[in-house]
């Protein structure tokens, strides 16, 4: 028999929802509405005068090669961060899952980076890779590699990807480990008895059973790469050199806060909002269908 709880009161369910709704409205809908409003305006820095310019802010953006380049940068950056983040943490989780001795120590160390703030992670890695004084730079120099991400865009990209992935691996690792531990031992043992090696067992049993976790992590990681990597980028490259690491969210901040171009910045956040809505919709609609629960 189906269990159902029915509210008899007309207002109680709304009252219970109200706090959450209030937060959503104040912190999400209200700023979003303001962004949309500002995206049609051209204002001076101090907000002394403001004129309605219709879609001009958007027109300027799409005529700006740098903005279009920022799209490409974001796509590359997110793909690298999500890709490496998921693959590496899956590898680590599979390894950690097999270990018998000192498993707790390994797991603790692997989860550690998650406790580090994004800005701190950025500073940490930029010290290691600092063009004149970094330890890694020193080693690379010994290998004959000229490392200077201050001017080399690809190296700068590599640096922010490494820092961002490093920070996110712990999170992914936790989910994969939990996923691995929820796979029934009997399934794997049965396969082993049938003669399947570790690799075969991984591809045919473990990976398909992990697909809900992987899908979830894919969504989370892409959102992470889009938004939460701001701290890493601000602490290291600040979008440079020559905008090589200027991802969309950083450009929103840069144009709005640093350059005081509120209209252009708001237009960008509106576009970003649309992208994220679309991306999430696509992910749930198409990719989720292929996932086996």
């Amino acid at each position, binding site marked *: 028999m189906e269990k159902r709880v029915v509210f008899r009161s007309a207002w109680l369910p709304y009252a219970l929802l109200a706090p959450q709704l209030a937060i959503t409205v104040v912190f999400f809908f209200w700023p979003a509405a303001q962004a949309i409003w500002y995206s049609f305006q051209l204002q001076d820095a101090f907000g002394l005068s403001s004129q309605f310019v219709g879609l001009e802010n958007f027109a300027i953006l799409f005529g700006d090669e740098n903005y279009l380049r920022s799209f490409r940068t974001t796509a590359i950056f997110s793909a690298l961060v999500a890709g490496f983040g998921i693959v590496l943490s899956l590898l680590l989780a599979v390894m950690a899952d097999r270990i018998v001795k000192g498993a707790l120590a390994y797991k603790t160390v692997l989860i550690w980076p998650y406790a580090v703030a994004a800005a701190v992670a950025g500073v940490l890695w930029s010290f290691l890779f600092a063009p004149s004084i970094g330890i890694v730079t020193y080693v690379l120099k010994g290998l004959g590699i000229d490392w200077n991400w201050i001017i080399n865009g690809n190296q700068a990209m590599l640096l922010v990807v490494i820092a961002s992935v490093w920070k996110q691996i712990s999170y992914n690792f936790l989910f994969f480990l939990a996923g691995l531990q929820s796979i029934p031992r009997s399934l794997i043992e049965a396969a082993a008895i049938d003669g399947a090696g570790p690799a075969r067992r991984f591809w045919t049993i473990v990976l398909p059973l992990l697909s809900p976790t992987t899908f979830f992590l894919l969504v989370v990681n892409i959102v992470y790469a889009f938004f939460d990597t701001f701290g890493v980028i601000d602490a290291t490259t600040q979008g440079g050199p020559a905008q090589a690491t200027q991802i969309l969210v950083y450009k929103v901040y840069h144009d709005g806060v640093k350059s*005081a171009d509120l209209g252009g910045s708001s237009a960008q956040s509106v576009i970003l909002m649309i992208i994220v809505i679309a991306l999430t919709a696509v992910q749930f609609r198409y990719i989720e269908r292929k996932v086996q629960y």
Partner: protein
Amino acid sequence: MLRKRLVAVIAAALSVGSLPAAHAQTEIQWWHSMGGALGDQLNELAKKFNERQKEYKVVTVYKGSYPESMTAAIAAYRAGSAPHLLQVFEVGTATMMAARGAIVPVAKLMADAKEPFDPKAYLPVVTGYYSDVKGNMLSFPFNSSTVMFYINKDAFRKAGLPPVAPKTWKEFVAAAEKLKAAGQGCVYTTSWPSWMHIENFSAWHNVPIGTKQNGMGGFDTVFTINSPLHVRHVAMLGDLAKKGMFTYAGRTNQGDAKFSSGECAMFSGSTGAQAGIRRAAKFDWSINFIPYHDDVKGAPQNSIIGGASLWVMGGKKAEEYKGVARFLAFLSRTDVQVQWHTATGYVPITKTAYEATKQTGFYQKDPGAELAVLQLTNKPPTENSKGLRFGNFVQGREVIEEELEAVFAGKKDAQTALNDAVRRGNEILRRFETANK
């Protein structure tokens, strides 16, 4: 993120609640960007003023870097809680100036409060930077610097060169080649690339950065930094970078450390870099005029200032403005100016302060401090060397930096990069012009 914001809101609410009850003194809020030793010196000024009189109390608040404190003040103005005084860096001048209503011109403030104030007391290159076309001083010059050229004399000797700084870029290239050949890892680096190699470069060679007197004559200005001379100079830098004789360090003062650690043999950076070099350098070094191209007529002209000025924000009470005026009058005093100049390494900005410092014999001990003044006043400033005033130049300068980076990385040739810088920079100028009609 959300939780952090909530905590901040609650903390702010609590601190407002616990503020002490009404002051008898009138408080004057001063937001600034002087960290470390410079911040101590600034606080010293406020303390002295507060001790001298009891009517007003200047409260200093450190608001982070120059762009950060400017952003904070803009946000505060929008929320109706701007400070009385705000330290704004030189590139923010046009943005502040355009904000009529948000600011009170210093000349007007001093006249209203009947405090003595003579713009002619300041070095012309300083007055020019912070005055409107009619010569009215809009903001109060506070800390001014300029760009200088430093060499590591030991590295020069090691390369078999006389330990004398090259005067021209031709001599510079010759010295760079010798240094490179002698195995010098980093031959030359710079801090503030746009400030040094575009802005000061233009003034030093008496060529315009933009039309309308470098933007001072109106917002309808366009950049002119893709002239043959600019292209030639940037191409030269690109070439030096390619040959390993110019190591790019970054957009701000990252070059300072590369020089003071002994890594780079030659370096261009702010006068303000001296203090750090003096502390860290374990080698013999000298401070010099920046090089020039000797085939350019009229070069060298004079260099332009960097640093910051104090802006008086609008919408405050008349009584408070009296206090601000009194404080600015205090800051103009020669003894205060001399103390600030000698303690911080910033340029003396009034003529009397310069003369007074000279008489103390300070420059015999520290010739570098005087060299900056001499370079700034090398010749009477022209339209091209008075300074610059471009709308939203925080953004404009970044565009220039980006295009320079593209040249130094070998991705663009100098002509293309500077054409792009002009085109992109002009778009920013037009947008600013429309927004500030």
